[in-house]
């Protein structure tokens, strides 16, 4: 079936008053960005809906991409025909014939947005239904639980036919809720946390702590790849790569082993807070989940939060590992996350990290370090990379 357009439906929730217009403008922008590169398809808004005019592009590919745009509830590929009896009948027949597997039952639903159209909606439905019954052998009408619904919408600019509604991913369009800085390790949790934040309309930047040569180029590449996966959902992501070796070595040399992780994470927060402020992010987000590892207890979180003023969002806080893994599989980050490269959280892991660290004690240990100097030098040494959904990778020229 060669479709002409795609209709986009988006939720009405959280859309009150002037917010609605802002929301729609952002969504429009996200939809434009989601279209294939160098596409001839165009997007426009009309009466609480959005349409992609395909201009000859494949509907399948565009729909696949739209399914990754937050804020979209569902989409339908549309065939546009002239508003004449013959054209509507013919178009509807073609449409139902193109459905695989062939439906055994169907119904026709007509909406007449253009009230000047002479026939009533019921008459159009009856006319089209009869035409289908006559021309598709064996098919029956079922008004209650049909296999296929032929939807007809008669509008002034033509008649739209569709039989398919593909679910979108819901949420709010990225950019509708401000910006957050995600602490992205190479693990399973942090990409999921980032995705969940994006789902609520947040634009992401990411920060990664790199401890070369303790962690390899491969582990950094893995983080870039994960950021790329997220970029497929929310557009390009700026990745701040923080040199962390000096801080980790300093902590290891001067602080007690059971506090290594706590102090390390306090440093991460301090650095992230500064990067967030410099880049207009209003909160940090992490992949922590309560009780998952020793450093993810309430005491630990409190000790970690203690050194910064910025809100720390933890969207996975109440999720089980299994639930997190399910999302990771769904958003296709799982496979990448389980690649076995060392990252900043796995090197120097103490045997018995403290599960109930105290802020005062952590501060006392940190007095042995030049906290301000270390943080400042890490921030200065941070390298920013733009991670696009479509990478220019090493070797990309080959393909």
């Amino acid at each position, binding site marked *: 079936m060669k479709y002409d357009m795609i209709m986009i439906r988006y939720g009405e929730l959280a859309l009150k008053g002037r917010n609605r217009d802002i929301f729609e403008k952002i969504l429009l922008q996200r939809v434009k960005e989601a279209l294939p590169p160098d596409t001839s398809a165009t997007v426009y808004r009309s009466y609480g809906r959005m349409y992609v005019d395909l201009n000859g592009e494949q509907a399948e590919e565009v729909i696949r991409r739209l399914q990754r745009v937050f804020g979209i509830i569902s989409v339908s590929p549309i065939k546009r025909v002239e508003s004449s009896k013959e054209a509507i009948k013919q178009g509807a027949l073609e449409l139902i014939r193109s459905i695989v597997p062939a439906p055994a039952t169907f119904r026709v639903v007509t909406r007449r947005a253009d009230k000047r159209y002479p026939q009533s909606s019921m008459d159009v439905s009856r006319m089209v239904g009869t035409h289908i019954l006559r021309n598709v052998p064996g098919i029956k009408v079922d008004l209650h639980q049909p296999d296929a619904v032929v939807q007809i919408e008669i509008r002034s600019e033509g008649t739209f036919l569709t039989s398919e509604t593909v679910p979108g991913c819901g949420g709010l369009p990225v950019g509708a809720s401000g910006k957050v800085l995600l602490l992205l390790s190479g693990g399973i949790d942090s990409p999921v946390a980032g995705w969940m934040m994006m789902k609520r309309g947040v634009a992401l930047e990411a920060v990664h702590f790199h401890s070369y040569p303790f962690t*390899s*180029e*491969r582990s950094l*590449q893995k983080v870039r790849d994960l950021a790329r996966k997220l970029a497929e959902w929310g557009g390009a992501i700026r990745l701040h790569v923080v040199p962390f070796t000096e801080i980790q070595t300093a902590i290891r040399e001067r602080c007690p082993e059971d506090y290594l992780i706590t102090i390390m994470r306090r440093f991460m927060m301090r650095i992230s807070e500064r990067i967030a402020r410099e880049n207009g992010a209003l909160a940090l987000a992490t992949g922590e989940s309560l009780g998952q590892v020793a450093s993810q207890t309430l005491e630990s979180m409190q000790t970690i939060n203690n050194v910064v003023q910025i809100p720390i969002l933890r969207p996975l806080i109440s999720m089980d590992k299994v639930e997190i893994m399910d999302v990771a599989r769904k958003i*296709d980050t799982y*496979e990448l996350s389980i690649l076995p490269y060392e990252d900043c959280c796995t090197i120097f892991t103490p045997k018995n990290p403290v599960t109930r660290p105290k802020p005062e004690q952590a501060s006392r240990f940190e007095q042995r370090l030049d906290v301000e100097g270390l943080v400042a030098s890490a921030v200065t040494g941070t390298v920013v990379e733009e991670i696009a959904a479509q990478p220019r*990778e*090493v*070797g*990309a*020229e*080959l*393909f």
Partner: protein
Amino acid sequence: MIYLDNSATTKPYPEVVETVRQVMENYYGNPSSLHQKGVEAEQVLKQARQIAAHALRVKPGEIIFTSGGTESNNTAIKGVATQYRNRGKHLVTTQIEHPAVYDVCKQLEAFGYEVTYLPVNAEGRISLEELKQAIRPDTILVSVMHVNNELGTIQPIAEIGAYLQRFPKIVFHVDAVQSFGKIPLHVREWGIDLLSVSAHKFHGPRGVGILYKREGLQIQPLLTGGGQEAGVRSGTENLPAIAGMAKAIRIMEERREQTAALYRELTARLRRGIASIPGCVVNTPEELTAPHILNFSVPGVKAEVLLHALEEQGFLVSTRSACSSKRNEPSRVLMATGMGRERALSAIRLSVGAENKPEEMDRFVDVLRDAVQRLRPYQNV
């Protein structure tokens, strides 16, 4: 010379040759090495894997690079046979498989496995009913090719896959060497567990192929060693060839619709022309066949004689699967369709590729008409 033996192998696209060259020159690192050259090579490998996964609509982790169709088939069948030998020792396949499946099954029989070889009808197609009846409690593998390499017949893979859903312990292997890129292939929807692909059948390099292995399925590796390819296929990856294959896949995807139309046009012309020559019979059925293969016979004329007569006029064709064309016996595949010995011995396989042009097909038909006329006095197989 006009090359009509694309089922045997294809001429690599110039872009593929260029990719292979560039990889040999610039990405000579071992993808497993930890240094920069290794990381770069690994990146090339990763992108190639993504391209392959995207084309098959599966996950990158489900793609195993092999040395080609034969290795993919061997890995799949022997891998399942050894992994699940405690579950049962019965395999189901067909009489018309390529030797890379058929002979592997014969080999397994020597190791104490039992194999049911499903018969085919006159069109070269197995029946789902017979497959259902062949299934036993100790069946561990069903291996059916998607497109037959000699006749071009398409097997009912979707239906078989749907039926096998009832037997989660039976592994379903599909040899897609002749079908990948030629006709629609829905690996997941059809419930395929293992699938074989070979690059030199679609204008990629030879010596490289893919084994799709469904996530979670365990099989015993044929080659053990360094643990490359998720442990299923050890050995340093043949990166130039793998990248060349990915390039060929990319090109194939880009030109999918136009090549499909071209192949259909080419074989349609051949079919029409050949059918009009007295003494010629088209063996490839009209319906449910791949668009690139057309098999015909000139009963009474020995295939090899006809082949050389056509070659003299500038057309390269084959008598059957290149892998068995040197034996002087009628094709096992054609005989399985119940075809007479005389007709089977005179069978010629034409297989078109991206380089062929419609006019060449018309010329071929003219040349064939003359050849048949010339050879008629010597008809006697």
